[in-house]
């Protein structure tokens, strides 16, 4: 019975995933076509609509051809250098990916701890939650130099605070928020009857946390993790730029942007690298999603 039920499900799931990939590729192509079409028909030096300067410039400096961007990957990064740009961009994306992953782990851990604390004590929720909301209104750029200078002064048993950790901490600073809020909602989501059931078993608070609240929170935490992953990427890239950390994709974007007038296609190679980094992070979380939701009713996974 089970075999006949699950096999068609698997098949349709595979088809759905395949269709998603096809749609993704098609949407990329569509964007490329729109880019080139606008470049062909748009005004070279920008244009006005009803006196408002709305139409962007379409000259080769502002909008290089797609094929120029792609072919740029095969060229060396600097004249006379032997390293092609794709190697540099890939290395930068990998560097930033590791920082973002560390930031994601820091943020998720902190977010979950805060969620547990707030779910446990109503007072903590009232005391902490407003600060969490306020914390997200502080511009990251303002915070970055502070974190770097605090980190620079830290030394724990001979272990020195590495510079990259400041960028990860800033990524974590953006990532923890959705996890804390989603986690709190999830941990308090079990119906009263389920909590009553655990009470009738004389279960302790910790037992209820691990056997009931955490599993109930999973459908809330999974989308929060997706948000946290992209926030961690943004945080790390911005932190790299504002703390001047070398080696990551954020730094490459800034460096290449300076050459925009002489080599306009170059900066786009780094921008696509950042997009790849975001995709890698969200792919990583999607794997976690599939793993955590594998035994759940299908309605809940949508």
């Amino acid at each position, binding site marked *: 019975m089970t075999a006949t039920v699950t096999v068609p499900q698997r098949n349709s799931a595979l088809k759905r995933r395949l269709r998603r990939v096809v749609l993704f590729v098609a949407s990329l192509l569509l964007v490329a076509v729109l880019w080139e079409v606008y470049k062909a028909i748009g005004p070279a030096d920008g244009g006005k609509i009803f006196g408002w300067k709305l139409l962007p410039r379409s000259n080769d400096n502002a909008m290089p051809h797609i094929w120029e961007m792609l072919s740029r990957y095969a060229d060396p990064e600097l004249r006379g250098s032997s390293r092609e740009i794709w190697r540099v961009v890939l290395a930068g994306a990998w560097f930033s990916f590791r920082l973002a992953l560390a930031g994601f782990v820091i943020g998720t851990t902190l977010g979950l701890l805060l969620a547990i604390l707030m779910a446990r004590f109503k007072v903590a929720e009232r005391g902490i939650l407003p600060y969490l909301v306020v914390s997200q209104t502080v511009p990251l750029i303002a915070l970055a130099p502070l974190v770097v200078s605090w980190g620079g002064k830290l030394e724990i048993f001979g272990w020195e605070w590495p510079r990259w950790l400041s960028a990860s901490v800033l990524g974590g600073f953006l990532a923890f928020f959705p996890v804390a809020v989603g986690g709190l909602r999830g941990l308090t989501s079990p119906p009263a009857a*389920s909590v*009553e*059931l655990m009470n009738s*078993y*004389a*279960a302790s608070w910790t037992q209820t946390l691990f*056997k*009931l609240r955490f599993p109930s929170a999973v459908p809330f935490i999974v989308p929060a993790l997706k948000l946290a992953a992209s926030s961690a990427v943004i945080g790390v890239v911005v932190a790299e730029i504002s703390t001047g950390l070398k080696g990551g994709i954020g730094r490459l974007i800034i460096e290449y942007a300076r050459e925009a007038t002489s080599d306009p296609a170059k900066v786009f190679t780094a921008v696509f690298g950042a997009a790849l980094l975001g995709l890698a992070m969200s792919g990583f979380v999607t794997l976690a999603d599939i793993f955590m939701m594998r*035994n759940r*009713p299908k309605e809940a996974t949508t």
Partner: protein
Amino acid sequence: MSAVEIRNVGKIFNAGSSNQVDALVDVDLSIASGEFVSLIGPSGCGKSTLLRLVANLLEPTSGDIVVNGKSPKQARLDQDYGMAFQQSGLFDWRTVAKNIELPLELKGWDKAKRRERALEMLELVKLADFAEHFPWQLSGGMQQRVAIARALAVHPQLLLMDEPFGALDEMTREHMQGELLSICRRTGSTVIFVTHSIPEAVYLSNRVVVMSPRPGRITKIVDVNIEGERTDATRDNAAFFAGITAVREALRGVEMTAHVRGIEDR
């Protein structure tokens, strides 16, 4: 020895505030070991509250409750009772067997022993083939059977049930009533059963406790005198109809207000 002794129990919610509710007043009830007792009455008569007081999920405002010769709190800590609710309350992320193992897990039983007991319980509710299924793959009736198996997993002397069949269709419901009685015959459990349905109460019970709202209290206790084992044929029995009539009359005596949706002649 009586399984449950309720003496002069009162329960007031929000005492002293403007929305004070006298949920229960002066409730006296003694339930013998092995007895099947139903609590019936309109919404707000305090029947679920009374069940929760016995389960120690609520504390009485006044009076005493003794469960298995102990305080309700001790009885809860010792897992002397099993409980089932209207919503089966199964955990979606656990297989059927793992759901039944939950109370045993919390008591610290080892894995092999837990599994053995869970399979024994599944045998009892005739779901042995579904141990590795997830609850959402089962029908409502099957889920409720799993919930009963979970309530019975610790082999409790006492079973507390709050409208366990309330969400089921009529056919499944009658079938489940028969199943419950046969389980009780085998385990010898004492049952306190909250219901809205008169036929259900009469079919299952030795005694039907009729309650009335505002304030919640016991208005009448109807003895059901059906001879012999109860089967589907019992539903055509004169004694069964006599019981239904007696309960209905007792309920009619209950003051009818705007909120009588609770009573359904099922």
